[in-house]
């Protein structure tokens, strides 16, 4: 029998030994642990996650390598309660034992619910839900782009609604996988393609109902960012009334279902037609009234006395002419009468002044050679002259004359 001889280990040997003991213990490999994350740190270069998992008394260091971390639906953070699955091993360099996490779930709320809230908060903080940055929906789209599964009932519903409501619009379908690995990338690529080609005026992105996992492609960041970046307005119609997705929040409009999205994408042609008919009838009434109004205005002038019976223009003047004529005649008559009266008055006065009357009072008018003799010097002695008296002429000869002094 060999005497007990303690084995001497190097530190590396010890660490390696402890590591192998731990790794081979089926009680802790694999292991499920519940605890709270603290000192969480993500190394951007490697993509590995480092943290401690703790409860009220103890703490253990933990690491999650990139390959596993990438599969997480949510983003771990300090203070978060989690249930994790991993294995226990030793980091040989430091001799520190730690948990190598392969998967992790938020404790309480489901991982998807947490991921949903996290992405929602993140995108909201970036302003991607602000209505001001969302492109406005066209009233009358001529091309409707549809991004959904090529097979589902959703597509059939969408096409039914579009052809019933607004058959004039062209429908451009881009069939994509709407659930499962890679579906979000396909949806995002389809949205980008429509934008690159400017192939539609409005996009319907959606799918029919399903479980949260089925609808997950519409909650992924890649989908949300493609919708947010779309210049073409997007209507999101995912699942049923009660299903809300991140896609709904970044889209220009959320529709409760795919068929509702189609209803919202296009106007109802029948309604439009009716509206046009009503407007046309109204316009007709308006113009007929206007013509009637103008006709009345015209009739006021056309029916006026002057325009209806223009002879009044002459009648007035004829009457005026007649009136003028009789006025002038009576005026002339008056003038003549006045003239006559004046004449007889003058005749009376002329009679009173007649020289014959003077002669009858005893005056005589001497004249010689047709000249009336009025001065003494006209009567030189021997001058022959005639003397006009009241009833005739007397021949006389001057004897002498004497001038009054």
């Amino acid at each position, binding site marked *: 029998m060999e005497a007990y001889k303690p084995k001497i280990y190097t530190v590396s040997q010890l660490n390696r030994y402890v590591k192998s003991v731990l790794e081979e213990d089926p009680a802790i490999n694999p292991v499920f642990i519940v605890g709270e994350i603290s000192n969480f740190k993500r190394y951007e270069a490697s993509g590995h996650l480092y943290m401690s998992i703790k409860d009220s008394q103890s703490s253990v260091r933990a690491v999650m390598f990139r390959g596993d971390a990438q599969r997480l639906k949510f983003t771990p953070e300090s203070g978060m309660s989690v249930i994790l699955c991993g294995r226990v091993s030793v980091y040989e360099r430091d001799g520190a034992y730690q948990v190598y996490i392969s998967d992790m779930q938020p404790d309480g709320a489901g991982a998807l619910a947490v991921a949903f809230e996290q992405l929602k908060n993140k995108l909201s903080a970036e302003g991607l839900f602000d209505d001001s940055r969302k492109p406005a929906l066209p009233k009358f789209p001529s091309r409707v782009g549809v991004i959904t599964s090529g097979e589902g009932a959703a597509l059939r519903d969408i096409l039914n609604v579009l052809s019933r409501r607004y058959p004039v619009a062209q429908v451009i379908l881009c069939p994509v996988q709407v659930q499962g690995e890679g579906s979000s990338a396909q949806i995002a690529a389809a949205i980008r393609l429509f934008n690159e080609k400017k192939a539609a005026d409005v996009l319907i992105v959606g799918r029919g109902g399903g479980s949260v996992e089925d609808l997950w492609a519409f909650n992924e960041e890649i989908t949300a960012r493609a919708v947010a970046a779309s210049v073409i307005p997007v209507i999101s119609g995912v699942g049923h009334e009660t299903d809300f997705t991140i896609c709904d929040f970044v889209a220009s409009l959320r529709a409760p279902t795919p068929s509702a999205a189609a209803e919202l994408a296009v106007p109802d042609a029948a309604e439009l037609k009716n509206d046009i008919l009503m407007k046309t009838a109204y316009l007709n009434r308006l113009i007929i009234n206007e013509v009637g109004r*103008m006709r009345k205005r*015209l009739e006021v*002038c*056309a029916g006026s*006395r002057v325009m209806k019976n223009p002879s009044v*223009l*002459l009648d007035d003047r004829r009457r005026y002419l007649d009136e003028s004529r009789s006025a002038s005649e009576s005026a002339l008559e008056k003038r003549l009468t006045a003239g006559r009266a004046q004449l007889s008055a003058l005749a009376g006065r002329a009679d009173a002044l007649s020289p014959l009357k003077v002669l009858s009072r005893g005056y005589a008018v001497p004249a010689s050679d047709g000249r009336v003799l009025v001065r003494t010097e006209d009567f030189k002695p021997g001058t022959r002259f005639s003397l006009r008296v009241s009833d005739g002429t007397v021949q006389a000869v001057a004897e002498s004359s004497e001038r009054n002094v």
Partner: protein
Amino acid sequence: MDFDYEASMKKIEEITAKLESGELSLEESLKLFEEAAGLIKSCSAFLDAAEQRVKKLAEE
């Protein structure tokens, strides 16, 4: 369209008012009356045509 309905209508109203005022010379009156009669005919024809066009549009 060359025909200016509104301007023609204004002219007709002006002329009618002038004719009714009786302040014009006979020569002027006759000249304006002829002008107004011509304009009334044009306006009336215009309204008839307008009504016809509206009817036709409404039927389409």
